């Protein structure tokens, strides 16, 4: 009785598999591996497609997964462009010779301090390291504006942070750079004593906002995105930026690169140029990702403090490198 039904089911399945198998061959003119937040990418891709008529196929995942995937795929990868949230993953690919030289015009569009020193990737947008604090647990005057103070004993039990988050290592690298490894180690131990570890900055922001933690280091845009999602009425937290010249006074850069494996090199270069063109940068500013466009003269979202007022001076992405030293230190302390 069940025999024929099983056969029928198997036939349907086989048909489905065949149908799905057929969609493998793509007609896209560009394959984009996207590790950047989807909001940002969607806005740009739409604008790019409208302008050029080139169909973009987007593959989104967290940048680290895509980085490992690209390392395994090597030159056989179907990807043309890799667009990331942070630069260490691009540096890791550059060291494995998986990136092509970025288009010179693109490199010339943004201040050189935000791009690869070897010209292998271009800085596209940025966000600024900041502290989020709960406004009912802390008064603005109690919130520090120096990174080292987060390790102070008075914040015991109040801190929330996400050491496995890719945004965290730049802070450690910066501290190592300005104050030395020993100081950075003392600071991390202080954080361990003071704080709760969360899996990512989204959680840090949400937990500070709901009062579970009183403060934590994040990047500015997590707070703006939470506000966009919850509405201003549900925000019980505020941002505070680090004082100029402090090791915490950092601009983390999101970058893009043309891959060695690219099959559509021209389209890929066109896309990277578009990312830093006035149009592309305005699309970033208009999208609600709350990132700072890096091209001079393109203003960010009106909700943000203009970049020239904050003027983060800290390490450049090139100086941050792959963050290996920070990683080793975090591993030594069992934070990773």
């Amino acid at each position, binding site marked *: 009785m*069940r*025999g024929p039904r099983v056969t029928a*089911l198997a036939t349907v*399945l086989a048909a*489905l*598999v065949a*149908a*799905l*198998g057929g*969609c*493998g061959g*793509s007609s*896209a003119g560009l*394959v984009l591996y996207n590790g950047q*937040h*989807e*909001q940002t990418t*969607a806005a740009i891709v739409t604008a790019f497609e409208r302008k050029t008529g080139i169909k973009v*196929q*987007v*593959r*989104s*995942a*967290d940048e*680290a*997964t895509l*980085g*490992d*995937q690209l*390392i*395994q*795929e090597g030159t*056989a*990868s*179907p990807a043309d462009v890799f667009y990331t949230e942070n630069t260490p993953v691009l540096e*890791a690919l550059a060291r494995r010779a998986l990136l092509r030289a970025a288009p010179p015009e693109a490199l010339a569009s943004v201040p050189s301090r935000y791009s690869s020193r070897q010209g292998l990737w271009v800085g596209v947008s940025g966000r600024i390291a900041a502290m989020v604090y709960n406004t009912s647990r802390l008064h603005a005057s109690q919130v520090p504006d120096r990174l080292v103070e987060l390790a102070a004993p008075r914040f015991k039990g109040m801190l929330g942070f996400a050491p*496995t988050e*890719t945004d965290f290592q730049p802070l450690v690298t910066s501290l190592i750079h300005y104050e030395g490894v020993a100081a950075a180690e003392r600071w991390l131990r202080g954080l361990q004593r003071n704080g*709760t570890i*969360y*899996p990512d900055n*989204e959680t840090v922001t949400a*937990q500070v906002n*709901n009062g*579970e933690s009183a403060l934590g280091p994040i990047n500015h845009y997590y707070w703006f*995105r*939470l506000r*966009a*999602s*919850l*509405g201003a009425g549900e925000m019980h937290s505020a941002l505070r930026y680090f004082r100029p010249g402090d090791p915490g006074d950092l601009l983390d850069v999101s970058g893009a690169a043309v891959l060695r494996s690219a099959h559509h090199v021209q389209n890929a270069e066109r896309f990277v140029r578009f990312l830093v063109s006035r149009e592309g940068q305005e699309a970033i500013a208009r*999208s*609600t*990702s709350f990132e700072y466009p890096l091209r001079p003269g393109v203003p960010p979202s009106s909700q943000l403090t203009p970049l020239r007022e904050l003027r983060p001076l800290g390490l450049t992405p090139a100086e941050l490198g792959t*963050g290996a030293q920070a*990683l080793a230190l975090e*591993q*030594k302390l*069992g934070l*990773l």
Partner: protein
Amino acid sequence: MASERVAEAARRPPLRTRLPFASLSGTLIAVALVLIPLTFVAVEALSAGLSEVRHVLLRPVVGELLLHTVLLAAACTALCAVLGVGCAWLVARTNLPARRLWAVLLVLPLGIPDFVVAFGWVSLDHSLHGYLPTVLILTLSLYPLVYLPVVTALSSVDGSLEEAARSLGLGPWRTFRSVTLRQVRVAVLGGCLLVTLGLLAEYGAFEILQFRTFTVEIFTQYKLAYDGVAAAVLSLVLLVITIAVLAGELALTGGRPATRSGRGARRPAARVPLGRRTVPALAAVVIVCAAALGVPVSSVVYWTLRGGNTTLPGASLPEALGYTAAYSAAAAAIATVLAVAVATLALRHRGRVSLLLERVTYLPLALPGLVVALGFVAFSVRYTSSAFLSSPIELILAYAVLFLPLAVVAVRSSLAGAPARLEEVARSLGVSPARAWARVTLPAILPGVAAAFAFVFISAATELTATLVLRPTGVDTLATRFWEYTSGFAYGSAAPYALVMILISAVPAYVLSTRFGLRSTGRIR
């Protein structure tokens, strides 16, 4: 005495059969697929020098995390065994009210991915973290791994053995322990094996409850250091532990797989009237369902109703559903067929080689999904000239490999209780082997086969890590959409995807409970 008869039947050597061509070739295909990620791990790890291996393994954090993982696996396995067997017994063997309903609901926690469970518990209580909450919450999401094979096996046990035991003066508890439990021992141990191995690769717990397990270290190497070699060395450690666990389970299952009396009609077992214990039993099942299902589902419903402003691009839910269903069903079909072959070879043609082959198929379960996925990527690039790269076939085969152990356990539990000798009798009467199998054995193991399909379907439908790597470019499944929305704070838009994920998991769970598995009264086979 009853159990002596069982043992005697089991010791009797099976009729000499010809080389079991179908099950052998099926098993070899399964092993070949499983070797894809295993070879990847071995090759990557061996590419490291000895000093690199020492550097990776001799950090203090490695031992500490290993201890965490072992403590977590031990506690969760024990609790899952109690919860899984308890619920299965209530549903399959008592007159518990609304059994059909519980039968569906009790399977469903399997269809809720870790990250949705996180969602639920953390929004219920922000301060949940550490060992104990982790043990409890993981138990509530993993017990179906024990429950499902056991409920399937329990509903087809031979009632005559229990009756014999009772008539010989054994009390109900001793009968349960020495006869009933013994008959479903393969299912119980198989389920526990799945829980233990699954926990070795557990990563969600860290993301949810900040309880750091060994897999966290593997992810750190991949995600922050881009050091695939170190990650492979660490994965090798997981495989060594897995081999020890597999050997242990084999020793416990022992050399006596069959549990059937060779003589007399097979009789369905009678249901135990709960009487005054109905209320506490019902309360227990309600509490399990409320905690395992109610908490995550209600938070998902809350977010769905609450909506929220998403700044993310809209996406097609039906399309994501279609891909999810198609990929999961294909993977479930493949894994189930392979599992029938593997289990048949291991149980019916028991020998060192067949057991070794069966054990090998369990290994991928203890590897993190990312490792398995990258193994498939490396394989596609090196040996298929990238033809399979990001193709649906690659993803479906990876799902089949990842969840094959679940299917093997489900089929094996059913097969262990099926009458091997009847098939032999049919064949001695001149029926062809294929026909004898289809007419005699297949109907007997059908509940197990259905459970295997459901197991793999539900697990694949909620898989995220490997899916992110292997899905065709441009394709979204329910899990990847959910992930994209939640990582952009868009909980209101993410929630419907989680709801649909749970709903499609309910389909196989429902079919399973109504068509198979719950017929312990009435029908005589």
